[in-house]
């Protein structure tokens, strides 16, 4: 176990990185005078390098890259948070039920988990994304449906040990219903690991969303998206490297930030390592 001072440092660096991205997303319209979807150069002569008017340059359609980055932060955070909540909801429910009731229900639910783990995540995502019309709601839903297995396995493991504790046995002996035992006595005990998984789930979902967008299967066109900024402009990499580097750094920062928060939380909350 690493010492707590260093974990706190990692955690705070992560919180700092994510705060910056959240601020970009919240203040987007105040941070740039430009519309992210509109050509802003007067006469298009190819992508422009960073200048005073356009701090991160303009892209292959003459749009302001900084405007697309700050509005793209909204997309990434919204997709990441929604997807994480879907995974968290399904995973925690499955983990609680499987761990508490055990026997055939546990066997059946864990069989579904094993099933999902044998299908490559990105390929399964691709299939689902083909079947559902892509939108700001379906993309996070699809990522969430694919990604809940870690939540379920971890919560199940915790419940297996929690349900044998004296206070849980006492509650059951006093006649508490299954629902009350699960919600009042087991759920709070899983909170530290769920918080860790929520942070790691955000980073995973943002990474998957970027991958999907890069393949052209993410949130549909008018919405600015960091992943697609790379796929749209990578053929111009030789002449306009900033068009690829800037969104790449943005995605990496978001993923690193949430990962740092997650790993810092492991030690700060005394959650088991997963």
């Amino acid at each position: 176990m690493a010492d707590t001072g260093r974990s706190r440092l990692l955690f705070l660096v992560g919180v700092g990185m994510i705060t910056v991205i959240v601020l970009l997303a919240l203040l987007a319209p105040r941070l740039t005078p430009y519309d992210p979807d509109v050509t802003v150069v007067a006469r298009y002569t190819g992508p422009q390098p960073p200048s005073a008017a356009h701090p991160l340059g303009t892209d292959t359609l003459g749009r302001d890259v900084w405007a697309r980055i700050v509005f793209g932060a909204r997309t990434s955070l919204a997709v990441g948070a929604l997807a994480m909540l879907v995974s968290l909801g399904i995973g925690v429910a499955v983990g609680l039920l499987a761990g508490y009731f055990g026997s055939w229900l546990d066997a059946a639910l864990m069989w579904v988990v094993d099933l999902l783990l044998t299908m490559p995540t990105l390929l399964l995502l691709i299939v689902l994304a083909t079947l559902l019309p892509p939108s700001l709601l379906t993309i996070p839903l699809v990522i969430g449906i694919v990604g809940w297995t870690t939540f379920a396995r971890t919560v199940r493991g915790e419940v297996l040990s929690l349900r044998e504790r004296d206070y849980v046995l006492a509650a059951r002996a006093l006649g508490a219903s299954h629902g009350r035992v699960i919600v009042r006595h087991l759920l709070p005990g899983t909170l530290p690991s769920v918080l860790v998984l929520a942070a790691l789930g955000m980073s995973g979902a943002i990474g998957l969303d970027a991958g999907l967008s890069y393949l052209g299967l993410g949130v549909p066109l008018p919405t600015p998206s960091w992943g697609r900024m790379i796929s749209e402009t990578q053929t111009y990499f030789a002449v306009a490297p900033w068009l690829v580097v800037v969104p790449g750094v943005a995605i990496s920062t978001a993923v690193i930030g949430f990962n740092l928060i997650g790993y810092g939380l492991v030690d700060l909350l005394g959650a088991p390592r997963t």
Partner: protein
Amino acid sequence: MAGYVARRLLRAATTLLGTTLVLFVLVRVIPADPAVSIAGPKADPATLAAIRKDLGLDDPLAVQYGRYLWRLAHGDLGRSYVTGRGVAAVIGERLPATALLAVTSLAIGFTLGVAVGLLTAARQGSAADLAVLIATLVGLSIPTFFVGNLLVYAFGYRLRLLPLGGYGGLSHLILPAATLAFVELLFYARFVHSNVSGTLASDYVRTARAKGVPPLRLYLRHALRNALVPIVTLLGLDVASLMSGVVLTETVFNWPGLGRLAVQAVFNLDIPLVAGTVLFSAVLVLACNLAVDLLYGVIDPRVQHG
């Protein structure tokens, strides 16, 4: 041991059956009408009816699922909506390119990763430990396709040493393999590092050290041997994430493998081809996990009785 093997085989078989059911539901039940996907939205009703009859789409779903399983058992993955070619044949054509890329990068990444993990194993919480933790965390957070793009920029555009993409000789393989190997290296380095660090701090290693066991023997016989079971487990699970990495890397480098095939099939709405690719990768992952399960008995004698 026989009972253990039988249980594992049964589990693999039920998972495989479940996978086919999931894919059947995804492919047959969710899309509105495959006949429209084949003939296009403007086709006349008579054509659509003929296609439905031809594909047996009017039969009950259970009958259709049974027929699907029967065909799978005979190696028939269906026909591409777009080209009309057998899906199994198309996958067979693309497989060598993907296998070359995946095996090369896994071999390089795994070997280097285990070596780096062993060499950097240190007291937990020390500066070296923290450095490895942060380096692997940051490295693994960078999207695969971004790593690939940066390599293309450096070695393709700037230094002009290597081709930008495509398939051919060794020079075409270097950048895509390096992209995937980068991820694999960090993944195994982090795991071996923390696992071996933990073992080195344990009582039995301290005892061995006190008895005067030389350091190399301590690392290989005590620490690495103990880490072997989880490493092999990880290797089995990693095949699934390796396939996801392959899809992105093949797209960056225009590498004509299964990943490119699946993505192109998606854009063509060629559902049998997409489903066939996913089923093929799922079978691959299942086979690897089964092999890993059976290997346990060899690596760890405790498992045989468990």
